[in-house]
Each structure stands twice: as structure tokens, then as C-alpha cells.
């Protein structure tokens, strides 16, 4: 039996937390992720299944939704990313696949992404320097893909002007973290 030590995306044994002024960037390691892409001709059934899984309608373009067990955000036409607490949902892809069956293709995404929560009263000052998201229209529940530091990242507004979740490519976790804290130091 291997004796492996779990580490976070940034390589630590505990989640990294950085604060500048009253804005805090927190690494969130306990997120299970799976992408769902509806297969052609089954888009309607897939969306209905996701609605029953989420307990709320599958998010429309540019939006995110939160259910009791799972949260989801829209990633493309008839495509979504689902997330859940890693503790208890480590097998998220198999769970979702058993629900959607042949109506959708499900891909495990858990270790493909690094997740950060950026929280504080002045996060828009950070975001407007980081990416080209239209912040005036970035209300709670909006989600979009954008470029941060030349990395394709998802940005989800969890509390407009107060809190966002950023998902970036895990292999570039250090670069993304560096970019965000550099901008925090500059903007705040």
C-alpha cells in the first residue's frame, strides 16, 4: 500500500490564504468537479435530468446555479460544469453519469482545476485589472469564462461585488495565484 501525502494545487499541506487590505484570496482544495455535455438530440432530456439532480433549473448561458448537493455553471451550449464537496462526492463523475446515462458525456474534472475564492468589499478593483469581465452586469449568479494572465479561467459571481470563485487550470495554479496576488497588491 502506498503511503501518499495529499497536497493542494499550490503544493501545500493546507490551503493557502493571502490577504491584502480587506480582500482575501483563499485556495479551495475540497471541490469535486465533473463536466457534462449533452449529446445531440438529447439536450432536453439531459437538461431535465440536471434539473432534478440540482433541484433547480440547469443554468442558462452565462449563469451558475446552486442546489442542495451540487452546484453548476454553464460552460457552453448544452454544456455545464457540476461541482460538489469533495468529501462525499469524490466519485462525482460516476454519480452524474449514472443519472444522465446516454443523454450526456460526463468527464471527471476534479484534479484539472485549481479553485480560489476571492472575497472582500473591493474585489471589483482586483477583477477589473485581472480580466475583461463586464463587472457592471456581473450580478450574483453570473458565471463566465475569461482570460486571466493568459489562462482560460472560469469566474463565478457568488455575491456581486463581494465574492467570486475563480477556477483556473491546475497545472498553472502557481502562475494564476501569482497573478491574482500581484494584482491585489497593485489594486488595493
Amino acid at each position, binding site marked *: 500500500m502506498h503511503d501518499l501525502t495529499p497536497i493542494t494545487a499550490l503544493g501545500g499541506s493546507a490551503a493557502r490564504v493571502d490577504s491584502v487590505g480587506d480582500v482575501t484570496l483563499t485556495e479551495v482544495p475540497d471541490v469535486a468537479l465533473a463536466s457534462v455535455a449533452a449529446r445531440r438530440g438529447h439536450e432536453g432530456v439531459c437538461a431535465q435530468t440536471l434539473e432534478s439532480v440540482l433541484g433547480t433549473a440547469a443554468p442558462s448561458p452565462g449563469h451558475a446555479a446552486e442546489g442542495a448537493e451540487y452546484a453548476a455553471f454553464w460552460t457552453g451550449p448544452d454544456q455545464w460544469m457540476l461541482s460538489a464537496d469533495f468529501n462525499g462526492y469524490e466519485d462525482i463523475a460516476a454519480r452524474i453519469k449514472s443519472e444522465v446515462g446516454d443523454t450526456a458525456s460526463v468527464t471527471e474534472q476534479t484534479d484539472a482545476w485549481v479553485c480560489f475564492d476571492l472575497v472582500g468589499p473591493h474585489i471589483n478593483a482586483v477583477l477589473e485589472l485581472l480580466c475583461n469581465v*463586464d463587472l457592471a452586469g456581473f450580478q450574483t449568479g453570473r458565471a463566465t469564462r475569461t482570460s486571466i494572465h493568459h489562462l482560460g479561467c472560469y469566474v463565478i459571481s457568488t455575491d456581486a461585488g463581494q465574492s467570486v470563485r475563480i477556477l483556473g487550470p491546475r497545472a498553472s495554479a502557481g502562475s494564476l495565484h501569482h497573478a491574482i496576488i500581484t494584482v491585489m497588491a497593485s489594486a488595493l
Partner: protein
Amino acid sequence: MIINHPLLGPRDSAEFVYLGAAALMDRPDPETASAEDWHDYAYLRDNPAGPHRELWFHEGGDRSILIVTRDTTTHEITGVELAREVASK
């Protein structure tokens, strides 16, 4: 230049990758096409001074491919459609 994405609203053209003329969607049938059909498909393009239907891939966004009607002399965009919807018509 701003492209008005049918699903996501106005987006900066820097998020997109240009994929060429929309005529590329009309690929010859591999079962029946002649060598000349493939030559025409691969190499022959109209080069209009004026409205031009072209493919733009939303690489920095939702990765959908759009058909943008753009005036090549002014960059004015007069139409944006999802290529998947045009293809399924």
C-alpha cells in the same frame, strides 16, 4: 472590435480566433467529391470588399463557433449567428 455573441452578449474580439470564410462549413461529401471539389474547397476563396460571412471561434469564452457577417472595408458587423444552429437548419 466587439462581437455581439448571441448567447453571451458583447464580447471583445480578442477572445475570438478567426477561422476563415463561412463557406468552409460546406465541406464536400467525402463519398462523392472529386479531386477538383477538394481543390476548390481547400484553396479557392472569394475576397469581397464588403459584407463577408466568416467563422469566429470563441476560444476565450464558451468555445462556440460563430458566423459573423463583417464588412471587410469598415469592420462593421451586421449579423452574428451560432454556427451550430446554421448547420442544423
